[in-house]
């Protein structure tokens, strides 16, 4: 009797909210024709449970201890992941091992490449990490191919999953990127505002320190064409450089600078120092906007085998979106350019509004704050 009582496990007072996150790993696979580029983030605490990292037993896992175990970590991880294209098993090799932090601690980041020897049309993934020692472990997969990203969760109950990676046709793929390009310029208010800030004075001419309505449509037209073309050329250039990974800039720098460019474009309207050759301004700042477009394109996952098509398609989409904005703005501005209110209300007021909005963006992006409610 006594024995029974002592053996009783006191029930939980409440099903607790766990202090820590349960064990998860993050697996990213990017399918490139006949090979897969992978990144696998595995918690150091899990690796310690599985193969033992803490050599000196002091409860602190150091970089030195992890580095010493790189071979063991790589071998352990790869033995728990089976990738196959159709029936053909792919052979994976670790390229490098880094460190990253997720919300619950330090992770070992394994970058690897798997060669499948034939174009991948159907990918079979067998995921067996840790299930034998932690039955509640999950593997969170992000699979990217040709601009499509799918996600899936591996658990002990579903360790094997198939993904059809049948390629969308060239045209469909291209159409998808055009679509993304259009949406990006419409939803990326910073680009729209920048363009509008540059276009606001396009229907006016600066004479003797004051604004006057431009005379005929053709001069306005050429002015707009030069601004838009310069912007296009500049951002196409940097978009390509970034998408092809020739140049890389940190996204926070790019995003903050884009916001700053909008502020400067607005200021330029209030204190006009460059009344002619505005296309130079447009070109200069267009360079940084291109990096912004590239970030989107990278997020979409560029299909390596049709890199050029998707790059061009995305750019075409951006141009279509841009022209639509010009087409909506220009006739209106041209019609009311002679009115009393245009230079005062539209140009000055509009520029002030643009500056105010862009300043908020800039502060948010540069200092990683959130000022505007979502």
């Amino acid at each position, binding site marked *: 009797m006594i024995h*029974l*009582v002592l*053996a*009783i*496990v*006191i*029930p*939980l*007072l*409440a*099903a*607790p*909210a*766990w*202090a*820590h*996150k*349960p*064990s*998860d790993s993050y697996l990213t696979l990017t399918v490139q024709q006949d090979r897969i580029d992978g990144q696998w*983030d595995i918690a*150091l*605490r*899990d690796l*310690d*449970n599985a193969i033992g990292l*803490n050599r000196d*037993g*002091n*409860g*602190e*896992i*150091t*970089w*030195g201890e992890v580095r010493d175990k790189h071979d063991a970590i790589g071998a352990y991880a790869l033995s728990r992941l089976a990738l196959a294209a159709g029936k053909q098993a792919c052979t994976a090799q670790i390229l*490098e091992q*880094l*460190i*990253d932090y*997720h*919300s*619950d*601690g*330090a992770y070992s*980041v394994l970058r690897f490449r798997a060669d499948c020897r034939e174009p991948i049309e159907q990918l079979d993934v067998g995921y067996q990490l840790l*299930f*034998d*020692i*932690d*039955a*509640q*472990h*999950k593997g*969170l997969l992000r699979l990217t191919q040709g601009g499509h990203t799918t996600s899936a*969760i591996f658990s002990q109950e579903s360790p094997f999953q198939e993904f059809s990676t049948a390629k969308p046709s060239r045209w469909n793929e291209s159409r998808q990127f055009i679509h993304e390009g259009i949406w990006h310029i419409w939803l990326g208010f910073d680009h729209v505002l920048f363009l509008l800030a540059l276009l606001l004075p396009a229907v006016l001419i600066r004479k003797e320190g004051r604004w006057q309505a431009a005379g005929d449509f053709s001069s306005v037209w050429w002015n707009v064409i030069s601004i838009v073309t310069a912007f296009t050329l500049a951002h196409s250039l940097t978009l390509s450089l970034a998408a092809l990974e020739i140049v890389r800039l*940190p996204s*926070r*720098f790019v995003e*903050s600078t884009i916001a700053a460019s909008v502020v400067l474009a607005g200021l330029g309207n209030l204190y006009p120092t460059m009344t002619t050759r505005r296309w130079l301004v447009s070109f200069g700042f267009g360079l940084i906007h291109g990096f912004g477009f590239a970030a989107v394109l990278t997020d979409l996952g560029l299909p390596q085998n049709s890199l050029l098509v998707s790059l061009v398609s995305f750019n075409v989409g951006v141009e279509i979106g841009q022209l639509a904005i010009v087409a909506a703005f220009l006739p209106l501005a041209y019609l009311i350019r002679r009115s009393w209110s245009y230079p005062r209300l539209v140009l000055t007021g509009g520029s002030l509004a643009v500056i105010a909005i862009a300043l908020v963006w800039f502060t948010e992006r*540069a200092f990683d704050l959130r000022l505007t409610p979502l």
Partner: protein
Amino acid sequence: MERARRILTLLGCWGAIFLCTFASAEPYRPTDDTHVLERLSITPANPIARELKNLRMELQANPRDLESAVKLATRYIEQGRSEGDPRFLGQAQATLAPWWNKPTPPVPVLLLRATIRQNAHDFDQALADLDQALAIQPTNAQAWLTKASILQVQARYDEARRACQPLARLAAAHILRGCVSDIGGVTGQSAKSRELLRQALSDSGLSGRERIWMTTILAEIAARIGAIQDAEHSFTEAIKVGIKDQYVLGAYVDFLLDHGRHHDVITLVQHETRSDGLLLRLALAEQALGLPTVHHHTAELAARFAASRARGTTTHVREEARFTLALQHDAKRALALAQTNWNLQREPADARILLESALAVGSRTAAQPVIEWLKTNHVEDLQLKELARQIQEKTS
């Protein structure tokens, strides 16, 4: 020209600052071998760690030995409760793998499986396991006790009381007292429950876990009926037992928050930032005191809740609702979360967050289920009653 040069210099500096500060947000390769990347919750030299290791080795030698597997799984579950680390639950489950998916696992495995499922908020399946265990072994006190506690979480109080009854002849007297007074403390019998618990606690032969269990129930009842000094006394008693228990700490900190003792909260949990529930309470105290660290902790919590959603689990809904209401000030979303949570578990804390969110949104309809629950069960809880009153006033 001069001006252009100045602007260029400025842009250069700006770029340099950004590049240095933010380039490290990506995976990186540390340069220093002695750089500590992670601290384990228990060091390998710790006696518990050594015990776990020995049990693991015993089991490895004979993986199908039920007795060692049950022993190891039980230790894992206890450790999980102390550290609040769900990895131990997954490890307990893995230990029981040879029996886990059998149609009729042995009774000890059924009991552990029920506890593991209870922890995953899979209450119905946990109850099914317990009923299966009781069908084989109707005299199993553990099964009755666990069953009563799950039924109580689901607000099925009559059934819970019935599950306590067999304990009268199957277990020591204090186990029965703990079982019924836990239910009575919520459902209008606080005086009798406190009396029963005091009697039970006068027994000097209680185990540490048993003492924590009953002292915490006593403390929570006292806090609910406004016996502040008694509550304080019992909470400190529970903590003094010396076995780390995330639940007790959380309940005590909630009590301190309710009484404006924010500095005490910070002293108590400032180093417990790995625990989501305690980090949430720390951030609440920091917010009340206007400390700047609240921003960092709020962001951290948001990331953790997002991670929990990504893996598709629902064990954090109560805390997420509280976080969303009190730290993100998004009453509408908090209400939706609190309602989801109320459909899953119905304890005073769950009632509280639903009422608070409903009050913030100004919705009497949303609060109605809790108001009904308060009435039907004669719940004794000053704060809940006050919240219900405010809602009725505001929306009438």
